[in-house]
């Protein structure tokens, strides 16, 4: 698929109209979705109407928005006024949002056109996109394998060339891990850079919205569009230098100090993944980066910390789903309490219930200090450790995930095994740091491998600059995707 700047140029030169582009995208989604299940809804009437209005504005010589006519997809946990938003859950079946999330609004204000909702793990809880009421998403590189999760639909949609941009949310790796599994670029911005207003809350101290694209430059441009202070989100950061995604210019990595955590290059990581990541590190070294290895003492502890803090926030955030004001209500002849319990029992899937129970347990009287209190202290130590590490290194790199995309059904009965697939991404969320996954190779089955770059707080520009330099050097070709294509653009 062409880069955003190429598509922008074609629209500007009138090689293709906005309407033609949107119609071809909708056709592409219809054709490819049968095999992938990446989209769960398309906004065809709305999208074509916006595209026609943009074409009319251009014909009349009116000012055109920078990304006019370019389609994008929205993960099913972000609100768009008047459209369904269900978090891939029976609990929110039929729910239409009465307002638009800030991130989606920023995209629309920049000219992007929303074309549909993408599949996800229920309430963003999962690492394979198999916990969805709409069924699993298939990996475009091998349809018997998972797409990763929880933003698996968005990752697969971009990997398959259905759309050039899709939005996801990342609480413990839910953008970077599916980006790794599907061979695309995935960005988790610094906590506070992108507004969470209108994102259905999973774990509010960890959630962050970011894009999937096929190219680093596109991802940088979209992150710039998404970013900005929003008074509707009390954790939105007001005093941040704006990101300049259009100004990536590194041609070498001279002077860049790169740290590699030994624990994420050990034999707990799949051999093919380690080999591809080592190859990427050699590229960085050849480009002039200074590489050194260090011990990160909290890899297992970070996973444990995350699976206390995130479920604790889940048990609180999801208490609003009670069948009273919105969402699924189970027909019950009993009392209000019976109705609430049976609505939650029938409305939530097993993984969501498991996390609510776990969160309730760690917050309950007698266990709070031992679990939640302790986890908050360890989280602070992890943040402190990163703060110290970034005095020595400019970028920290590792595999994005310990394996490539596994087969569907392989881990669904073993939640702990599923959680381990986020071992390299979770520490980044706990510290609120920015992280990007770029494809760096394939394993012996031809499945993509992701390379994670993590930077200082609000230092996304450096990550994008380094990632683009590396992307050009590695020369990963996304066309190998089984179902991927060029969508006529």
């Amino acid at each position, binding site marked *: 698929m062409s880069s955003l700047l190429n598509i922008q140029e074609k629209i500007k030169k009138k090689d293709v109209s906005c309407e033609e582009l949107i119609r071809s995208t909708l056709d592409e989604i219809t054709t490819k979705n049968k095999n992938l299940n990446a989209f769960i809804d398309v906004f065809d009437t709305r999208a074509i109407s916006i595209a026609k209005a943009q074409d009319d504005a251009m014909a009349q010589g009116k000012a055109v928005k920078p990304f006019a006519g370019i389609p994008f997809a929205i993960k099913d946990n972000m609100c768009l006024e*008047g459209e369904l938003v269900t978090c891939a859950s029976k609990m929110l079946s*039929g*729910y*239409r949002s*009465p*307002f638009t999330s800030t991130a989606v609004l920023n995209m629309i204000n920049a000219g992007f056109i929303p074309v549909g909702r993408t599949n996800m793990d229920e309430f963003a809880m999962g690492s394979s996109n198999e916990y969805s009421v709409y069924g699993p998403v298939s990996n475009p590189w091998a349809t018997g394998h998972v797409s990763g999760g929880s933003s698996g639909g968005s990752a697969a949609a971009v990997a398959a060339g259905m759309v050039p941009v899709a939005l996801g949310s990342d609480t413990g790796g839910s953008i970077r891990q599916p980006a790794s599994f599907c061979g695309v670029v995935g960005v988790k911005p610094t906590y506070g850079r992108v507004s969470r207003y209108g994102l259905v809350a999973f774990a509010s*101290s960890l959630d962050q919205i970011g894009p999937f694209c096929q190219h680093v430059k596109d991802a940088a441009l979209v992150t710039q569009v998404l970013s900005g202070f929003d008074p509707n989100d*009390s*954790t939105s950061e007001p005093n941040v230098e704006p990101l300049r995604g259009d100004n990536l210019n590194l041609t070498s990595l001279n002077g860049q100090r790169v740290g590699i955590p030994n624990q994420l290059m050990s034999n707990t990581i799949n051999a093919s993944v380690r080999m591809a990541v080592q190859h990427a590190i050699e590229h960085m070294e050849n480009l002039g980066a200074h590489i050194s290895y260090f011990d990160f003492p*909290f890899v*297992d*502890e970070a*996973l*444990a*910390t995350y*699976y*206390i803090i995130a479920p604790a926030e889940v*048990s609180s955030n999801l*208490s609003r789903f*009670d*069948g*009273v*004001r*919105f*969402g*699924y*209500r189970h027909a*019950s*002849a*009993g*009392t*209000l*309490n019976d*109705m*609430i*319990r049976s609505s*939650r*029992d029938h409305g*939530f899937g*097993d993984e969501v*219930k*498991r996390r*609510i*129970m*776990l969160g*309730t*347990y760690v917050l*309950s009287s007698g266990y709070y200090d031992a*679990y939640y209190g*302790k986890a908050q*202290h*360890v989280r*602070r*130590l992890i*943040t*402190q450790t990163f*703060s110290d590490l970034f005095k020595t290194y400019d970028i920290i790199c590792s595999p994005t995930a310990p394996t490539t995309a596994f087969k569907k059904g392989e881990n669904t009965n073993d*939640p*702990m095994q599923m*959680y381990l697939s986020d071992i390299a991404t979770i520490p980044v969320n706990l510290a609120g740091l920015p992280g990007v996954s770029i494809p760096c190779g394939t394993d012996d089955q031809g499945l993509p491998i992701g390379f994670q770059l993590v930077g200082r707080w609000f230092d996304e520009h450096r990550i994008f600059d380094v990632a683009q330099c590396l992307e050009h050097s590695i020369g990963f070709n996304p066309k190998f995707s089984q179902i991927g294509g060029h969508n006529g653009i």
Partner: protein
Amino acid sequence: MNSVDIDSILALSYLDVPEDQKKTFSNQIRRILDYMSVLNKVDCESADSRLETPMVARDDSPVVFEHALVKENAPDYRPEGFAVPKIL
């Protein structure tokens, strides 16, 4: 965690899972909690309190939000409010 514990957690969670699933959930949660024991080895004395997350709660004034979809999304909306089953 034994079956008595799972019942108490289910009650606190406002969840009601079928009897035959309780043992599965209980075993899975037990295994996850066992993994959490790695945190017992961490010495948190050195945790720097300066890195504590600042309080982000604000004294926002409530804003009345009216939209036709608020009523349409309700399982049982009536002019006087959201209808629910009897409390007792």
